[in-house]
C-alpha cells in the first residue's frame, strides 16, 4: 500500500506539485488524471525517486521511502513505466526484463512464475530474442510493463500505458490489468488520458490540476465534480457580449 502525504515539488519558483496527498490500497488500481501539465508525471517521478520531494512524505507499506535513491526504491518494489519509453535498445527483450529481474533474484519467497506468466499474457513470448526497437509500439509499451513487473513491485506505476495503442490493444491491456490485479498483489497507479479506460479500469481516482490534488474518490463521484470537469475540459472562456 502506498501513502503520499503533503508532497510538494518546486522547480525554481514553480510549484510543479503542491501539497498533494492520496493513498492507494493493495490490489487497487488508482487512476491519476488531469489535464496536461497538471503534475501527474512529476508525481510519479517523486514516488519513484527520480526527483526528490521538496516537502512531504511517501510511504510504502508503512515504510518511508522519500529519502531513498531511485534504485533502492526500485529494489524495494516501486516499479514504473515511462510515458516516453525508456527501453534498453541494445539489449534483447529477454535481457531487458532480466535487468529488473536480477535486482530481486536474491530475495526469498519470490513469485518465480510471475514474469513467465506475464510474458505469455502480454504477448511477448515470440519476441524474446528480438531487439525492442524492432517491435511494434504497443508491444514496446507492454514490454515496459513486464519489465517493471519483474521487480515484483509493491507499487506499480503506469504512465500512459495505452498511449499510441490501437483500440484492440487497449482492450487487451484492460484485460491484462484485471488479470494482473488477481495474479500479483500490488498497488497500481495509472496515468491515462483515455477516460473510458480509466473509468472501467480504476477503483479510485485522483484528479490533479496545476500541481494540486483537486479531488480523490470513486470514479463515479469524482467525475461529477464540477471543478474536475472544468479542469479537465476547460472552463468556458466566453464572455457574454461575444456570444455568437
Amino acid at each position, binding site marked *: 500500500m502506498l501513502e503520499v502525504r503533503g508532497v510538494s515539488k518546486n522547480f525554481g519558483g514553480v510549484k510543479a506539485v503542491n501539497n498533494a496527498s492520496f493513498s492507494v490500497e493493495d490490489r487497487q488500481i488508482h487512476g491519476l488524471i488531469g489535464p496536461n501539465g497538471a503534475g501527474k508525471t512529476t508525481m510519479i517521478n517523486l514516488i519513484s525517486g527520480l526527483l526528490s520531494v521538496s516537502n512531504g512524505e511517501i510511504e510504502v507499506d508503512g515504510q518511508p521511502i522519500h529519502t531513498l*535513491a*531511485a534504485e533502492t526504491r526500485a529494489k524495494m518494489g516501486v516499479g514504473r513505466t*515511462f510515458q516516453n519509453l525508456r*527501453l534498453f535498445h*541494445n539489449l534483447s527483450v529477454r535481457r531487458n526484463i532480466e*535487468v529488473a529481474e536480477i535486482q530481486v533474484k536474491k530475495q526469498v519467497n519470490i513469485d518465480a512464475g510471475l514474469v513467465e506468466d506475464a510474458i505469455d499474457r502480454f504477448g511477448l513470448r515470440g519476441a524474446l530474442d528480438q531487439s525492442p526497437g*524492432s517491435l511494434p509500439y504497443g508491444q514496446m509499451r507492454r514490454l515496459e510493463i513486464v519489465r517493471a513487473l519483474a*521487480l515484483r513491485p509493491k507499487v506499480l506505476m503506469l504512465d500512459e500505458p495505452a498511449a499510441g495503442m490501437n483500440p484492440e490493444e487497449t482492450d487487451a491491456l484492460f484485460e491484462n490489468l484485471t488479470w494482473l490485479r488477481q495474479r500479483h498483489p500490488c498497488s497500481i497507479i495509472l496515468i491515462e488520458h483515455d477516460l473510458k479506460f480509466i473509468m472501467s479500469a480504476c477503483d479510485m481516482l485522483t484528479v490533479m490540476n496545476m500541481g494540486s490534488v483537486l479531488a480523490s474518490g470513486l470514479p463515479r463521484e469524482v467525475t461529477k465534480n464540477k471543478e474536475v470537469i472544468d479542469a479537465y475540459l476547460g472552463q468556458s472562456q466566453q464572455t457574454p457580449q461575444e456570444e455568437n
Partner: protein
Amino acid sequence: MTLRLNINQRKGLVGSTLLSLLILAIVGAYYLWGESYQARILYATFVNLLVVVGLQVFMGNAKITSFSHSAFMGIAAYVAAICVTPAAMKAISLPDAPWGLNAFELSPLVSVLLALSITGILGLLTGLFMARLTGVGVTIVSIAILVIVHSIFLHRTDIFKGNQAFFGIPKIFDLPHITILAIAAIFIARLFRESAFGLQLRACADDEIGARAMGVDVYRTRLIAWVIGTLFFATAGIAYAFFLGTISARPFYFNFVFLTVAMLILGGLRSVSGAVIGTLLITIGLEVVRWLETGPDLGIIKMPQMLGLSGLLLGVVIVAVMTFLPNGIMGNREIEEIFKKDPG
C-alpha cells in the same frame, strides 16, 4: 522466470574460445612460418589487445569515453619495473632515486602483485569520482588524470627518468606469457559483459534513467567496471615493461590513447569480439603503413619517405568509422553471433 543467465554465459564461453583459437592460430602461424623480429610485433599486439579489451569493459559497456588508460598502464609498468629490477642495475639507471627505491629488489611475482594492487587502489580512488560523473565530465577528468600522471613521470626524473629510458628491467615475459594473458583477458572481459554487472552497465548505457528505475545502482556498476578496466591496463603495463626491458614516459601518453581507442571503435565498442578484431586489423594495417613510411623500393617506383602516414591513416579510420559505421564492425554482436543480423 527461471533466469537463464547460463545461456548467455555459455555463449560467452563459446565466443571467448573462438577468439582464443584465433589468437592461438596467429601465434601458431608465427612459430611455424614467422621470422624472429615478428615476435616483437606480435607481443606488442597482444599488449594492445589487453588494453583494448580492458577499455571495452568500462568504455564499451558503459559507453563513456575515457582517455586515462595510458596513465594506469604507465603507473603499473613503472611500479613493476622499479620493484623487479636488480638493485645493482638500479644503482646505475636510477642513481638519485629517493626513499631507497634503488636499494631493493623483489621477485617478479611480488612485483606484479604490488604493481597490480597499487594501480588497482589508484583505480578505485579515481573511480570513486569517475563513476559519479557523466558524459563529457568523465572524458575531461580522464584527460586530467592522464596529464597529471604524465607530468609526474616527466617531473620526477629521479624516479621515472622522464622521457629517457629506464633500462635494465629483466626480461621476464615472452610470447607464451602474453598469449596466455591475452586469452585470459578475453575470457574475463566477455564473462564480465555477460554477468549481471555487465548487463546492468549496458542497460545504463542505453538509458540511465530507465536503468535506475529498474533498480540498477549506476554508481556501483560503473565503479566496478572502472576498477576492472584499470587492472587490465595494469597487466598490460607490466607485460610491456617485462618484455621490452626499458620503458620511458613517452609511450604512456596521448598517442597510445588514440591508437587503442581507434582500435576499439573500429571493432565496435559494445562487443569484446569487436575489441579483438579492431586491435588485429589496425595492427596489421599499421605494419603495412609503417613499411610504406620508410619509403620502400617497389621495383618500378621508389616510394618517398613519408613520416606521419600511419598517424594520418589512424585519424582517417577514426573519422570514417564515426561517420559511416558508428557502431564499428561488430556493432552489438559477438563472434558467435557473427551471422546474426545486428539488432543494434
